[in-house]
């Protein structure tokens, strides 16, 4: 589904990602783990088209999207939920969701069905559809950005630190949502610092350290590697 080979990304003069390779099969939930500054978000921004790769290739379902613009990436089927939880604060919840479906804007019937599906997954958003997104709580905003990404009908969903800065009870609910999404057959790439919860959901995981993948395997393999936990993932 998503295939990344020898990807390198520079941040100014600093090489933040150094030749990493990974892949996601259809319906898999794969997690990218690592401490702060390991290069996780940089990798994700590059996949989303917001940062240019300085080397390597990214293919989605056989199509190269390495040097695609953000607009082209989402049209190719890759939807991104950035860690900064970027709702459009002055737009209502409904308008935010409508923009999520921008690339399908002519397919009104399809969007209505998709909106119903999204409202079933996130009933809170249906209740608040006329409210300005900026007035939602942090947890609700996180739900909104995920829901908005789903409105683009992605084949692969990229989630960047969905638990960042949220209260533990909310984090649990967000991970439940992600689990529900996974069960619908969606391919998900989950970038997380919250190792235990990410591994509880993930089929496989990669561990990133200083821009390089230092370990990969099934969630169980990563979890049982005490060495990795101690050194790279903070216990």
């Amino acid at each position, binding site marked *: 589904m998503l295939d990344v080979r020898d990807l390198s990304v520079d941040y100014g003069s600093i090489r933040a990602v150094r030749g990493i390779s990974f892949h996601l099969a259809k319906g898999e939930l794969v997690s990218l783990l690592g401490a702060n500054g390991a290069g996780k978000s940089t990798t994700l921004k590059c996949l989303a*088209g917001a940062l240019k790769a300085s080397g390597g290739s990214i293919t989605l379902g056989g199509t190269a999207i390495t040097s695609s*613009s953000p607009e082209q990436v989402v049209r190719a089927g890759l939807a991104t939920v*950035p860690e900064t939880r*970027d709702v459009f604060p*002055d*737009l209502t919840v409904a*308008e935010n969701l409508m*923009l999520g479906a921008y*690339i399908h804007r002519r397919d009104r019937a399809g969007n209505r069905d998709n909106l119903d599906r999204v409202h079933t997954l996130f009933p809170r958003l249906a209740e608040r559809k006329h409210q300005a997104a*900026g007035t939602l709580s942090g947890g609700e905003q996180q739900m909104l950005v995920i829901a908005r990404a789903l409105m683009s009908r992605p084949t692969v969903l990229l989630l960047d630190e969905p638990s960042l800065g949220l209260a533990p009870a909310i984090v649990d609910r967000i991970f439940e949502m992600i689990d529900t999404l996974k069960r619908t057959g969606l391919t998900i790439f989950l970038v997380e610092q919250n190792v235990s919860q990410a591994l509880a959901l993930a089929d496989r995981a990669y561990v990133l350290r200083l821009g390089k993948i230092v370990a990969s395997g099934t969630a169980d393999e990563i979890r049982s590697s005490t060495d990795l936990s101690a050194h790279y993932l903070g216990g």
Partner: protein
Amino acid sequence: MAFAIQFVIDVLSLGGAYALMALGLVIIYGILRLVNFAYGELIMVAGYTLYLTGGSGLPWIVTAVLALIMAVVFGIFTDYAAFRPVRAKSVTAVLITSFAFSNLLQNAALLFISPRPRYVPLPEVFSQTVTIAGAVTPVRNLLTIAASIVLLAAVAFLMRKTTLGIAMRAAASNFTMARMLGVPANLIISLAFALSGFLAGVVGILWIGRIGTVVPGIGLEPLLVAFIATVIGGMRSLPGAVIGGFLLAFIDTTLNYTLSQDLLKFRDAFTFGLVILILLWRPDGLIKGPASGQRT
């Protein structure tokens, strides 16, 4: 009574024109975080189109439509000539290119048309007056009020109810995120320039309806007015620009009515003094724009 009606009509007609000018400027600023200093020249382009097509025998309304089209075309052209090539560079670069483009258009008018004011043929309706409850008022003032009501409503509808308008508002708040949802950046920006050009065209026609002539520097005053109105209203808020426009017109008209003949030549000093007081009270303008967002 007649005095009150006269005052209200004056404020509303001047305010409507100011609000449209400010709106055209803030639409670009909202998305690009850049002031289009060539905005005044779009008004000039509309004016010279009216002048040049005036003697062609075409009905006036056709020449007015042509003036609007030219303002839209030059609006989009501003994007391609002054903004797009340097957009990703620095604010200073765009500042300079938009000034340069403004200068280029003004000098082209100086060179190819004339440095002297040119009389623009206008339909009679622009010079007629009507009496409303004892108040004698030029019909053009009522036309300005009507045009601004229609256009402000149309812009509000476009921005709130259409996908493209909502995409423009989203792009104004967070350009990168809007792109990540598939909103085509360049199309949205060109559309904003087209809309800005259209508003400048309408303002140009209404403005020339007031003064009757066109000169190469005709755009300077509307640009300044638009800039001040947006600063008062809040640089990034569309309703703010409209409110700023009307407030500025209210201040100007009140001063026109109350200042003695000797003091009237210092009207702008009084106006700017009040603007400074407003900004001391609300440094970000009356209405704050979207909370987040970055220059693109």
